């Protein structure tokens, strides 16, 4: 007890976990029966559990999955997996308490809108079929984790309406308001946005249109300001905030892209910066 008046939080937390011996537990419970302040403290401890459990789960960002693929491929090239025999993973894991799929919570603040709509495992993609196929080809070659990404564009993606644009027809060439919008859900850091960006945005150039009129309008606005079309757009996060990340060629000959990061209101979340593309 503190000052012969109340029990401290640690004692109350231990009571809640059943860690106190019977005599102490009885003593604390007797006190709780007459002490509102300690009852409030106990409720506060329960609230901590609720708060922690309410933090949403997010899928692994594409950039991280690709990094891991590359690292594991490097390991494979060095000598391959050294398992004596291949275990039957299905059998081993069938009773696992962790085999329930990870689903983003509907109210998840760090889950992209597209993912929230679909409530699918993994990330959501908003890109035309042609571009998705192109991405599947590229990512399929990477293997491992990105195999899920490629398949995710089929069952977890958002079908994009609007005119199909041939992958060969770069927005840079056509000067149409057409671009691929992805929703990777990746939480970009300033360092990552210095590039290289190809690993995050996928194959260049992205083409297509976006069904989200507000994002479309914002991208068109920025494209107009810079007098060029974006080569890639990703609906994701920047330092934990909802963000649309746009990449425009600054100087293709030196692999330089201009990166624009805006919030939902289309205002810049960071000063425009230059980055490398690949």
């Amino acid at each position: 007890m503190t000052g012969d008046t109340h029990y401290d939080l640690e004692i109350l937390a231990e009571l809640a976990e059943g860690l106190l011996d019977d005599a102490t537990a009885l003593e604390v419970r007797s006190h709780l029966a007459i002490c509102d302040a300690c009852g409030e403290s106990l409720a506060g401890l329960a609230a901590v559990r609720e708060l922690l459990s309410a933090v949403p789960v997010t899928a692994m960002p594409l950039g991280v999955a690709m990094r891991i693929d590359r690292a594991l491929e490097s390991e494979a090239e060095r000598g391959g997996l050294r398992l004596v025999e291949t275990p039957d993973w299905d059998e081993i894991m069938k009773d696992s308490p962790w085999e329930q799929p990870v689903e983003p919570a509907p109210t998840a603040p760090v889950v992209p809108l597209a993912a929230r709509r679909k409530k699918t495992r993994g990330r959501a993609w908003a890109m035309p079929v042609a571009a998705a196929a192109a991405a599947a080809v590229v990512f399929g070659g990477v293997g491992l984790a990105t195999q899920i990404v490629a398949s995710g564009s089929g069952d977890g993606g958002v079908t994009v309406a609007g005119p199909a644009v041939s992958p060969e027809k770069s927005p840079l060439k056509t000067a149409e308001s057409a671009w691929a919008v992805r929703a990777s859900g990746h939480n970009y850091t300033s360092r990552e946005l210095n590039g290289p960006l190809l690993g995050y945005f996928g194959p260049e150039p992205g083409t297509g249109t976006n069904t989200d009129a507000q994002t479309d309008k914002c991208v068109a606005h920025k494209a107009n300001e810079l007098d060029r079309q974006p080569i890639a757009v990703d609906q994701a996060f920047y330092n934990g905030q909802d963000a649309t990340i746009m990449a425009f060629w600054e100087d293709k000959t030196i692999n330089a892209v201009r990166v624009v990061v805006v919030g939902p209101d289309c205002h810049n979340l960071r000063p425009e910066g230059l980055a490398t593309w690949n």
Partner: protein
Amino acid sequence: MLTRHIEGDTTAFSEIVKRHRDRMWAVALRTLGDPDEAADAVQDAFVSAYRKAESFRGDAAVTTWLHRIVVNACLDRMRRKSVRPVADDELIEAAERDMPLPDQTAEREVSLEVTAALKLLPADQRAALVLVDMMGYSVEDAAAVLDVPAGTVKSRCARGRAKLAPILSHLRNRTDLTRVSSPKGAQLRDG
């Protein structure tokens, strides 16, 4: 059934990656509270698991094995950073200092504040709370992952919650948490 589709060990390991990467990411991100650090930790963990695969015994739960590697990778990172335990006063001051901007949504604010508060806890308490309270694993499962007795997990959780309670108390009114107070209190009072 899976083994029929497996051609070679690399494919077998890719299956592990596919099955577990989102969950491993969630554990690492919550434990470390930083996407860059979490990405490094998960990558280290998968590469480490790949290298240690020959030591894996088929009678052990691969999920426990993999979780343990990821959690240890996170704990190693935290310890390398020499995060010292801090006093309660410092915890509260730090939480107030890290208060999110007022224009952020309530949900995002809660999430960010919880993440910031967790980062102030000692590594062992943070790891226990991530597994039990955030990931929803049983104390026994968390104990298997952390390779400590169940009582130790309970104790770490209790101490961690006791530290977090004053820091996060102002969030109670912003979430639908009223239902947890009275029944829980009554249950404990009544034994």
